[in-house]
């Protein structure tokens, strides 16, 4: 236990991540249990009488003189429990330390050194992992005469049979760490190997090592208990396992002497539980995604009432902070319905309800006309993806639509209020009326399902009346549409190239002939030639099928080429909206001009591409008095 605390408390100056677990009820309970049981094992033996003393009162129930009753031969159970706890904790710690050292040796050193050593170490730990541990321990113990079976022998045997699992975990982590920049830098700088491992690598592995140590302690206590229960434990030792062994042999169970066999098991269970709770907190350092999230509030999950039109803080921001940044006459008012629009967004605001609320989308109004391509341009972090997700209601807590409306003007003339949909209506709306192609085409396809399955489930969900054959024909047709051989339906995503995958995604988006397709940086991850091919295809399909496109990108020159109209977004607002020709010829907002300038001609030097929204949250939450704004203002004046 002391080792554990030392591990957790050791300072780690070089790492940027959290070192100490966050203080949470789980951790507090865990540490509390461990401390109480640890103290009981440490001090308990001094407080109780002789555990071996035999009295003439076999198997008496708990009483004042014997708080936990007596055994068959009249020994005090409480006294035995104190010594047994100490014995079990001792073995657990001993094995925990030894097994962790072994696993560190085989896992970290092996994978760091690499080459043959790594191969050999890895094979060895995999072999040890598949050979069943307890039968091996039993066989070894059986060959050692009882007289020679001391605590240390048992501890060594348990450590030797118990290190392999964590060695494998540590190896995987070391392999990923050793290619990180700072380790590479230390190696290039000529640091000695042991120094790189000890000073650079080990501190970053500490949370993982600590968690493996905790596992090793639990495992060792459990194994030793099992072994002693079977009568194969260390000779003359007193552990919780031997207590249970005596209880079993004394027919405690059949004679109903629960006070004899319940407490030892309870101590093990509680101690293991305490260690596991501590491990949760360590796991949360290793994998921050696992952290507790507050229970979702019901009102966030189902939005039935209409959102309020406008929030007070939004109005304040409107009036004081950003006024003058937006060209009032350059953006559609949004209150007057746009003729021929397929999608209208009015005064939409999206806020991340974090400790400091972040207004990612502020009072945005947009109208997308039937069959047109509207480019939504802005730097990363300006809120354009948040806007896209909100239109499809894909945003998740803590993001929340705080005001505004989203309306889809359906082909048959009906106006659909997207924010008022209930769960089933929303599901029916998605993909059927409005589909999306995501930024990371590489990861947008499910790696374990075939292309056909992933196209097919769209049809089975939205067009339940289609027959199997019709669905197949439709999927093949969609692939043909985007220039992919329908034989590829049988393929898995990893068997396709990046460009091919994005084409499949586009085919999927067109499967139901939606009226609007949202493209969220659809080609960013692809090389330029593939990018061009896919875009050309999209333009052709748009002409042929007549869907409207909301194209989200940071690539303004690209938008000038392909889109009908362009909306420029910054800090959650649309600052300018005009036709592509107007934007190219006479951009009106200083930020638009700046964006245009920051894309140099192919031969020129790279412009200073401003990235005011590098940190979306802090940027958006603060008044935009950052240097970049001054820069724009200054530039705007010099023009």
């Amino acid at each position, binding site marked *: 236990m002391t080792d554990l605390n030392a591990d957790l408390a050791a300072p780690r100056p070089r790492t940027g991540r959290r070192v100490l677990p966050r203080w949470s009820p*789980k951790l507090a309970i865990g540490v509390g249990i461990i401390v109480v049981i640890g103290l009981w094992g440490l001090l308990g033996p001094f407080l109780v009488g002789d555990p071996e003393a035999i009295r003439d009162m076999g198997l008496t129930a708990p009483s004042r003189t014997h708080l936990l009753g007596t055994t068959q031969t009249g020994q005090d159970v409480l006294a035995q429990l104190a010594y047994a706890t100490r014995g079990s904790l001792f073995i657990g710690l001993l094995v925990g330390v030894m097994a962790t050292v072994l696993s560190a040796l085989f896992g970290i050193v092996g994978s760091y050194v690499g080459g043959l050593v790594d191969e050999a170490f890895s094979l060895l730990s*995999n*072999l040890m*992992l*598949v*050979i*069943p*541990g*307890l*039968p091996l321990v*039993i*066989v*070894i*113990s059986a*060959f*050692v*005469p009882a007289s020679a079976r001391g605590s240390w022998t048992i501890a060594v045997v348990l450590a030797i049979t118990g290190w392999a*699992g964590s060695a494998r975990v540590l190896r995987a982590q070391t392999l990923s760490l050793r290619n990180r920049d700072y380790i590479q830098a230390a190696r290039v700088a000529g640091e000695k190997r042991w120094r790189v491992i000890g000073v650079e690598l080990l501190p970053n592995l500490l949370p993982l090592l600590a968690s493996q140590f905790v596992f090793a302690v639990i495992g060792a206590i*459990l194994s030793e*208990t*099992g072994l002693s*229960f079977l*009568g194969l434990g260390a000779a003359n030792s007193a552990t919780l396992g031997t207590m*249970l062994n005596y209880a079993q042999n004394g027919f405690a*169970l*059949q004679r*109903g002497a629960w006070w004899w*066999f319940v407490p*030892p*098991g309870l101590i*093990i*269970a*509680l101690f*293991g*539980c305490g260690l*596991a*709770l501590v491990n*949760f907190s360590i796991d949360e350092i290793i*994998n921050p*995604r696992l952290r507790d*999230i507050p*229970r979702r509030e019901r009102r966030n999950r189902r939005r039935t009432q209409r959102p309020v039109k406008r929030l007070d803080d939004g109005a304040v921001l409107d009036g004081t902070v950003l006024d003058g940044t937006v060209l009032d006459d350059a953006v559609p008012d949004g209150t007057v319905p746009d003729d021929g629009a397929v999608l209208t967004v009015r005064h939409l605001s999206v806020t991340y309800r974090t400790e400091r609320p972040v207004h990612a989308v502020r009072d945005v109004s947009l109208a997308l006309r039937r069959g047109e391509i509207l480019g939504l341009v802005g730097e990363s972090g300006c809120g354009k993806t948040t806007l896209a997700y909100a239109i*499809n209601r*894909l945003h998740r807590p803590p993001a929340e639509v705080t005001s505004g409306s989203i309306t889809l003007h359906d082909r048959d003339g009906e106006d659909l209020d997207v924010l008022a949909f209930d769960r089933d209506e929303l*599901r029916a709306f*998605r993909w059927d009326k409005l*589909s*999306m192609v*995501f*930024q990371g085409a590489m*990861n*947008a*396809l499910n*790696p*374990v399902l075939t292309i056909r*399955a992933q196209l097919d*489930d*769209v049809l089975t*969900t939205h067009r339940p009346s289609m027959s199997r054959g019709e669905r197949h024909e439709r999927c093949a047709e969609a692939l043909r549409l985007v220039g992919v051989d329908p034989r590829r339906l049988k393929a898995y995503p990893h068997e396709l190239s990046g460009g091919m995958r994005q084409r499949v995604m586009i085919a*999927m988006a067109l499967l139901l002939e939606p009226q609007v397709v949202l493209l969220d940086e659809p080609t960013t991850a692809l090389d330029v030639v593939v990018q061009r091919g896919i875009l050309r295809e999209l333009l052709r399909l748009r002409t042929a099928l007549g869907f409207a496109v909301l194209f989200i990108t940071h690539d303004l020159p690209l938008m000038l080429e392909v889109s009908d109209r362009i909306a420029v977004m910054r800090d959650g607002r649309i600052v300018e909206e005009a036709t592509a020709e107007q934007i190219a010829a006479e951009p009106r907002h200083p930020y638009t001009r700046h964006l245009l300038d920051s894309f140099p001609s192919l031969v020129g030097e790279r412009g200073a591409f401003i990235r005011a929204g590098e940190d979306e949250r802090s940027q958006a939450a603060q008044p935009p008095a950052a240097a970049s704004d001054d820069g724009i203002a200054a530039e705007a004046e010099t023009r």
Partner: protein
Amino acid sequence: MRYYLRKLAFYGAALWGALTLNFFIPRMMPGDPVDILLAKLQQRGANVGPSARRAYELLLGGNTNDSLIHQYFAYLGNMLHGDFGVSVSDYPTPVATVISSSLPWTVALVGIATLLAVLVGTGLGMLAGWRRGTWLDSLVPATTVLAAVPYFWLALILVAVFAINLGWFPLLGGYDVSLSPGWNGAFLSSALRYGVLPALTIVISSAGGWLLGMRNMMVSTLAEDYVLTARAKGLTGRRTMVWYAARNAVLPSIAGFANSLGFIVAGSIVTEQVFSYPGIGSKLLEAVQNDDYALMQGIFLVITVAVLGANLLVDLLYALVDPRVKANG
């Protein structure tokens, strides 16, 4: 194809490693097991000739004129023929017969219990990860208590409650001894009734680990783009949860099966002891208590082969559930 070959080669190596361990352990340990064994045999009135002595010496070492290498190959030959010698505790039954009569009990018990534990554990883990932030979160700390409970202690508690106090299930054994074993309804239903508590023990104590692993992987998987795509596609929550999130989240659990199987086997050995279940775990302990080294070694090998076989099977199945492994070799 390369994937399968590599797996086969690995488990071949593991089997060879286990056989070798089995050969060297008795030779490295103090004491002379052959003499102890032969003394026991003589007590039981067995006529121990030089050939029997030699067979045991091959298995366990001892005073022999043969070189270690020679002993090793003769031993490997015996093992490959399934010739494990004669059991002392069940003299004169051959070890192979003792094993083959007790193995089915353990395979059925551990097999069914493991299957149930995996289904219950991953099922609940899937839900707990999917519905994060609801009452299902409280399952997570509960599993830690269960995972930390020693198998046999849980077995003792179950016996105390359900067999002794409530009398719902029998206390000990694998079937009603008044019935003769066979494929008839009375015997099978009796075996089923006797198997409930041992199986329950294994399910309760191992399902927690599956739950926790699955839940954590679900949480990680839900952040993947393909889950977002599934939501955008308007699929039902059920289909998204099962075919997009869980289908991917379960892969590490399957890949880590080897690790869990070791615990389950260990747990079942001790559990069998509590219930005096007529399986191979009880036999192993009986062998240990009687210094029946031949039986002990035979059982160790059989358990190892069974575990390796189960792992091989899972690895081969893994190639079916994750199409990427074959491509990466």
